[in-house]
């Protein structure tokens, strides 16, 4: 019964998206149609709703065990390969970490290179990137491929030739502003955020004209209303107007000017509501004692009008962060029954360990539950105020500077980092790659210097108590706020998931396995060892009537650098170091694309 109902809902969702596609009169309704075409993979998370779900069902739970490698491609770049390929017609587009190469590959010729683009970037940007020189992918729109380079140059390339059409500088690396995010194209605009929360930047979301790269609007995460594009009367926080200059009033003095709230995650879009959704990151510095107040609007979900940038609603998940729980993870937009009532929902798995279900039209908070039982820094989220109820023992603010607060779960990596989850309308479940890691956190005084790290805390990370597994791959019910099944993984799952109409869910592991599991039970159906650890996101596409699965491998990212050798167990001194040191026995660095198919 439940299953049948969910199927109907899925169809409704598809139909409403189709309707809005037909009704769109904008310059670029092209993408609204393209995202519905399961043969292509036209944006990093598959569609504007960021469900990472595909209607393709040639590869299914019965035959996925027969998958084999169709072809592979080396990017020639070491370090962490996050994100994944785009597929448009006969062409696949892939990107690399710094130096941010882009390749257009011919799907009619086993991935022969049609064109290659390699920007010239000053290597001085490398030391101002916090957690490896990753890049999470490309955007497509109006015949252009959009790349956001590490040095914050946003460049539009002709999708056919790779020739530069326009470029614009979004930030200043000499101030610690860098870029790792994948842009998003909506209508006639390109949206891009900024990285640098560990360097005291002030985060912002910027819209550029797709046609010529001209700035359309910019909305900062903090500052006066004219900077944040918040309307003191109309913009709401859990139903209440935010009031005047809410991006300043919860900061001490001028600290908002170096307040962080970077916007380096994923962006979603609802064409019916004309709203885009994204989250902001940690307030700067990591030493909470140095920046009293709620530090609005760091750690916040934003719903903004795509045309004007003005926020309809905001919700701050972690006021006055004390643990580096950036709120930047993807916002998954689904139409589901929540507490018995049909909702236009937004589902978000935050770094802070809570899985949030919200009404994406009104910004109402519907569900906030822990998606890893290990989470201990807060007992629960107060559903009226939206505030997490912080446990003193794990509060680095309460324990103060120069005090090593131990046993905080999750670690700064979060119960989940940026690796995006997937939603299958067939099962009504969310498939979430997670970390199962805890930490010690010692904040201390730091001074701000432009372009220099502004961190102010030292951390040790280790597996959550009661086991040695550093990750889980879980199925989540966003209505009940409960884990349906959970597969332990020896290492953090740092790869974006994919679910399909074949009732299979795919994800990668840090040892380098591409895995396929049954969408209903989580039972492992297939695994294959790729050349390096997988921190990329799995996608699927159809070419010449055949379904393929594609993923970038290439160990790195925060998991690869900070953890591969750096996890420390404060008691034994060996446990977790042993666990993570063993990662080097499984895999080495190196970027490779692997494409899978069923045998003929």
């Amino acid at each position, binding site marked *: 019964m439940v299953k049948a109902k969910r199927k109907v809902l899925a169809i409704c969702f598809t139909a409403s998206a189709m309707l809005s596609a037909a009704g769109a009169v904008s310059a670029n309704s092209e993408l609204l149609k393209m995202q519905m075409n399961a043969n292509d993979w036209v944006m990093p998370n598959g569609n504007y709703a960021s469900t990472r779900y595909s209607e393709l069902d040639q590869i299914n739970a019965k035959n996925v065990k027969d998958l084999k490698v169709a072809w592979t491609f080396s990017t020639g770049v*070491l*370090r962490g390969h996050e994100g994944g390929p785009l597929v448009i017609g006969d062409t696949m587009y892939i990107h690399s970490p710094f130096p941010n190469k882009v390749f257009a590959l011919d799907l009619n010729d086993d991935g022969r290179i049609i064109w290659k683009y390699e920007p010239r970037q000053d*290597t*001085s940007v*490398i*030391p101002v*990137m*916090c*957690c490896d*020189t990753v890049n999470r992918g490309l955007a497509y729109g109006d015949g252009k491929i959009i790349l956001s380079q590490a040095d914050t140059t946003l460049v539009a390339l002709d999708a056919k030739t790779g020739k530069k059409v326009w470029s614009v500088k979004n930030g200043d690396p000499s101030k610690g502003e860098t870029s790792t995010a994948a842009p998003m194209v909506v209508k006639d605009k390109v949206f891009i955020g900024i990285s640098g929360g560990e360097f005291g930047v002030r985060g912002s979301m910027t819209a550029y004209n797709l046609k010529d790269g001209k700035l359309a609007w910019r909305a900062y995460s903090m500052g006066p209303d004219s900077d944040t594009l918040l309307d003191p009367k109309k913009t709401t926080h859990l139903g209440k107007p935010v009031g005047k200059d809410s991006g300043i009033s919860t900061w001490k003095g001028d600290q908002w000017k170096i307040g962080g709230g970077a916007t380096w995650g994923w962006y979603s879009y609802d064409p019916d509501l004309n709203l885009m959704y994204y989250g902001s990151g940690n307030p700067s510095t990591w030493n909470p*004692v140095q920046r009293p107040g709620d530090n609005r609007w760091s750690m916040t979900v934003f719903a903004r009008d795509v045309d004007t940038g003005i926020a309809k609603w905001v919700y701050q998940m972690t006021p006055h962060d004390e643990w580096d729980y950036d709120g930047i993870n993807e916002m998954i937009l689904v139409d589901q029954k929540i507490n018995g009532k049909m909702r236009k929902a937004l589902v978000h798995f935050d770094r802070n360990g809570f899985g949030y279900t919200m009404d994406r039209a009104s910004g109402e908070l519907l569900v906030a539950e822990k998606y890893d039982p290990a989470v201990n820094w807060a007992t629960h989220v107060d559903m009226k105020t939206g505030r997490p109820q912080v446990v003193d023992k794990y509060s680095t*603010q*309460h324990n*103060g*500077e*120069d005090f*090593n607060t131990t046993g905080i779960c999750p670690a700064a990596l979060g119960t989940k980092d940026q690796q995006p989850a997937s939603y299958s309308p067939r099962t009504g479940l969310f498939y979430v790659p997670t970390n199962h890691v805890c930490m*010690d956190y*010692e904040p*201390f005084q*730091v*001074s701000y*210097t432009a*372009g*220099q*790290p502004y*961190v*102010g*805390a*030292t*951390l*040790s990370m280790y597996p959550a108590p009661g086991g040695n597994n550093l990750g889980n791959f879980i199925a989540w019910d966003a209505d009940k706020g409960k884990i349906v099944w959970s597969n332990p993984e020896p290492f953090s799952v740092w790869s974006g998931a994919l679910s399909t109409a074949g009732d299979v869910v795919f994800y990668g592991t840090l040892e380098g396995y591409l895995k396929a599991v049954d969408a209903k039970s989580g039972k492992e159906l297939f695994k294959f060892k790729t050349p390096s650890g997988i921190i990329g996101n799995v996608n699927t596409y159809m070419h010449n009537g055949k379904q393929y699965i594609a993923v970038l491998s290439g160990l790195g990212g925060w998991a690869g*650098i*900070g953890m591969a*050798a*750096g996890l*420390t*167990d*404060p008691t034994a*001194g060996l446990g977790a*170091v042993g666990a993570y040191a063993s990662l080097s026995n499984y895999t080495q*660095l190196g970027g490779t694309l692997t494409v899978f198919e069923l045998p003929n």
Partner: protein
Amino acid sequence: MQHSKFSKSIILASIALTYSISGYSAASKADYRDFVPSPEQPYYFQDGKVDFGTYNGFRRYHADCHVCHGPAGMGSSYAPALLESLKVMSYGDFVNAVVTGREGMDNMIMPSFAQNVDVIKYIADIYAYLKARADGVIGPTRPDKFPKVKKLIADN
């Protein structure tokens, strides 16, 4: 919160003062309370513990340096492992590299940290930590430490 923390450190400081003035450690054997760092002997290590300055070096290293040089000085594909470099690098060369930066090794760039007071102010502590790592005295994990002594007296 800040006030209570502050008074706590004053108390700690006065305890430390009491100890050294009252001659509690009157025995002839020198210990961490008598330790004065120098380029030749930048850290103090006894019974599995390091002096507070070396511990502070661990903290500061992991705030400002480890992004490129890897956790615990173990290096990464962007920058050399300092626990190896400091086997041959003098204190003077170390300070020079941090202050002026370096360029030219493969694609690598070491930026200047001259403007970064979080590094410059504690450069001797960071050196002490890395030297202790290079000498194999401490492992990759958070080192155990003796209480803050000399620094508190100096601050007061």
